[in-house]
């Protein structure tokens, strides 16, 4: 059983999805999904623990040996990602039943769970697999279910947003597929481990160069790097609230994982960062993303839009850290990957609670909410502080490492810009705080109450995690650091 954990991680939610369809009753489907997601979470914890103790786990699918068969390969990096995805998924599911009861038509609610589990499968699969083509397969599973999930939103614009995402996502996926195809053409293998050994021999060819560019561009579309981010705000804003919470915390993270995986493991550091001016390119795009995202966030009146733009900015931070191509930088990237999932998970769940009570997330719905929904708004404020990077929250930890990495490289200008970026976060977070605590509610009727426990529980678990991992950094720091070191391998 223990030996089969890597495949169980993916296959359990995959099998559960059709079963969900058979369950028909939404309540049952909900409970079932929670159980499945919980199992996935437990498996991921086991995997992480095993990896930390005994190193890389490999699993040969169907007993076929590695270069021919599909291999699942769990190292510290993807073990961490598996934990992030499955934990957030479980927490979001807790709130899902209450939330979608108001946001999705009765007859479509079962489909929601089916799609949700499929999407979960896709993300877990992308992360767990050690096979390049398999990555594409799971990418399509997660993307297709994501398009449908977004389209479930009750706002009519959700369909348009889903369509936009569909077009952009498909272009991204196609680019990745082309890249993988070119790699296969040059090396005759799809196994990542195998690729990493064979690619250096043909590294100087235009084909490999092209393959890398295709993969990187495709992945950057998926992770919403400025200026390929245009699909994201609408998709996040009009999707059902819990879907947004799930995707904001995980979907872009999976794409960033792919970027790191392809750059470091498959193509290798020496190839990735020497043949292309990637450092400069990523640094500039990352910084541009921070400012474009943060400034756009300041001017949004829909709070879901606001935090969607903030996500683009946060991706910018991760990319800036990534662009330093040092161990410290990569550690900062991975830390922020983990930490941002905690922040955005909490924030978007809090928004889901607001939408549940008020029907929308417009700024003027927040008038006076500080009194009407004190716990939800307190969570939103703490999440916001974490986003700003106030000490004793996780945001501070990742920012500290990011600053260290930038100073290590002597990039003073970027250091100052990153700090300026976090000031913009103060502005957009405080817009909400002021409205929530200083304005009188628009409609004085006392119908607006605190969110139900099914919201508050997962929100506060995440908020607690925001503070806990901001103080006790041993777990997150150790995993991130060791993953970063092992990704750099022999070349420090």
């Amino acid at each position: 059983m223990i030996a089969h954990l890597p495949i169980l991680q993916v296959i359990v939610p995959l099998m559960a999805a059709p079963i969900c369809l058979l369950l028909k009753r939404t309540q049952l489907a909900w409970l079932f999904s929670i159980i499945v997601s919980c199992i996935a979470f437990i498996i991921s914890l086991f995997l992480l623990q095993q990896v930390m103790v005994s190193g890389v786990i490999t699993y040969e699918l169907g007993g076929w040996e590695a270069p021919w068969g599909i291999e699942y390969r769990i190292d510290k990096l993807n073990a961490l990602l598996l934990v992030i995805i499955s934990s957030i998924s479980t927490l979001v599911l807790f709130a899902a039943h209450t939330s979608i009861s108001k946001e999705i038509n009765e007859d479509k609610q079962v489909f929601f769970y089916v799609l949700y589990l499929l999407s979960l499968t896709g993300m877990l699969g992308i992360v767990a697999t050690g096979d390049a083509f398999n990555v594409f397969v799971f990418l399509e599973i997660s993307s297709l279910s994501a398009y449908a999930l977004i389209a479930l939103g009750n706002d009519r614009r959700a369909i348009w947003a889903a369509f936009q995402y569909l077009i952009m996502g498909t272009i991204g996926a196609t680019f990745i597929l082309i890249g993988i195809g070119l790699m296969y053409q040059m090396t005759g293998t799809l196994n990542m481990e195998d690729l990493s050994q064979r690619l250096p021999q043909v590294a100087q060819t235009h084909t490999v160069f092209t393959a890398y560019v295709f993969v990187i561009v495709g992945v950057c579309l998926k992770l919403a790097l400025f200026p390929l981010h245009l699909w994201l705000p609408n998709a996040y804003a009009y999707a059902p609230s819990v879907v947004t919470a799930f995707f904001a915390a995980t979907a872009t993270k999976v794409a960033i994982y792919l970027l790191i995986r392809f750059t470091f493991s498959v193509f290798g550091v020496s190839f990735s960062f020497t043949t292309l001016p990637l450092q400069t390119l990523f640094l500039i795009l990352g910084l541009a993303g921070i400012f474009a995202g943060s400034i756009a966030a300041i001017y949004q009146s829909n709070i879901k839009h606001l935090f969607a733009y903030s996500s683009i900015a946060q991706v910018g931070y991760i990319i800036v850290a990534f662009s330093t191509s040092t161990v410290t930088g990569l550690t900062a990237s991975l830390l922020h990957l983990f930490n941002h999932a905690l922040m955005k998970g909490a924030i978007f769940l809090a928004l889901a609670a607001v939408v549940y009570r008020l029907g929308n997330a417009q700024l003027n719905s927040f008038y006076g909410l500080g009194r009407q929904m004190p716990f939800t708004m307190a969570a939103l404020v703490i999440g916001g502080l974490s986003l700003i990077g106030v000490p004793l929250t996780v945001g501070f930890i990742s920012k500290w490492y990011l600053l260290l990495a930038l100073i290590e490289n002597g990039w003073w200008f970027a250091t100052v810009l990153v700090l300026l970026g976090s000031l913009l976060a103060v502005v957009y977070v405080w817009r909400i705080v002021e409205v929530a605590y200083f304005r009188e509610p628009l409609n004085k009727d006392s119908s607006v109450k605190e969110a139900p426990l099914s919201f508050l529980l997962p929100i506060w678990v995440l908020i607690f995690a925001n503070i806990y991992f901001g103080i006790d950094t041993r777990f997150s720091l150790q995993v991130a650091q060791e993953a970063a070191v092992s990704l750099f391998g022999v070349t420090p």
Partner: protein
Amino acid sequence: MSISLEVMLQLAILIPLLATFVIYVTGKNQNLRETVTIITSLCLFYLIVNLYQGVISGAIISAFWWELLPGLDISFTIEPLGILFALIASFLWIVTTIYAIGYMRSHQEKNQTRFYLCFALAISAVMGIAFSANLFTLFIFYEVLTLSTYPLVTHAGTDKAKKGGRVYLGILLSTSILFFLLAIVITWFVAGTLDFTSGGVFSDDVDLGIASILLVLFIFGIGKAAIMPFHRWLPAAMVAPTPVSALLHAVAVVKAGVFTVLKICVFIFGLDLLSVLPSAQFLLYLAGASVLLASIVAMKQDNLKARLAYSTISQLGYITIGALLATSSGVIGSSMHIAMHAFGKITLFFCAGAILVAAHKSKISEMRGLGRQMPLTFIAFFIASLSIIGVPPTGGTWSKWFLLVGTLETEQWVLMMALMLSSLLNIAYLLPIPFYAFVPCSPSNNSAIYKSISNDSKFTMAGIKEGPLLSLFAIGITTMACLILFIYPQPLFELATAVLGVKE
């Protein structure tokens, strides 16, 4: 004494923190809630006095809480400067609480539970700042202090309060994130440690250019010290209820700022390095300009609290100058001025609050002749003004003396002139207030107020309508302190010299 000093040190931070919960729970019953606050403040003061005796007897008191990141930990240690700051803050917390009860009740403020809760939280943060053993711990509590005082500044909840809060938070957070945090990371990168070390953390061969830039970043980053380009938050914070302005924006918050400046000058840079830094000279002139300009602006303010706020900015400049002079008399002067200014300014704010409650006046031009109605308040105002100006028989004399000696020693003639000139300006903007209150002598300006007062120009006991009794009591305590510190400044002086004693 059964509990060890180490435990006391931690309790000093935890007790106010704990009090926030108790205050929240007892919030419904205002008598109980305020009893809790007073008892907590008394306990805290008791602890600090014990710690003070420990420090005097030479005990080394430190505590370690938690290692946040490798090499960066939350830990505390007590040195003379910290205990000096803690003594002032904890003592004045008692007085302010007494004052606040009178003020808040007769002013019928809303959300008083939130008020007392945030107040206790802020005091906890102040204790954390005072005792922090490294820059990292200090930064954490510095930010906590900013955030916990925000609800106090915006207490009224009006549009004006919101605007004030925006400026307050905007300047304090952005300077701390943009400059202070950056400076801390660079220090960590260059020196490899953030611990407050006697004589500084940098090695002798540190690049003077980098150290210069760091100093500028630190001085600008510590927005709470209100050096001129980043001073706007302090007048903005005056929308807060008067007890908040009194304790936090005359004592705790601003003193946390200059305390941090002193700590960094003495324990991060070290006086030897500081005296050779080229940027120190520039910052000295900036602080000097801050002293003068703020005094001039103060003269033009008609709102009493705004005038006091600008006066605070000016006085904070004195302390920063003392720290940057990098001589022993400068540091002694600064340390003592932290205390002297605290007592003087809190009295002035208390008076301002009492006038607001009793006579509903906040404009200076409307206070003519008010001395007959509130004689005690205005006498206190007069004495506190003398202390701020720095003339006998008040405590302010000593600190200003040492600061002037410091400028003489380093032959900073321009700065000396600036300090002298500013003292003259102090006289010009503070003394007329109590003077005209007692002698409303301009009949040409025959406002309605003047008339009403001149009608019963005879001084009668019946005409006296002072502020709430509790507030008056608090004013009495701090005024006495101003006088006592002139006759008996030795303990303060010993602590101030001990700040440097650690160095050798």
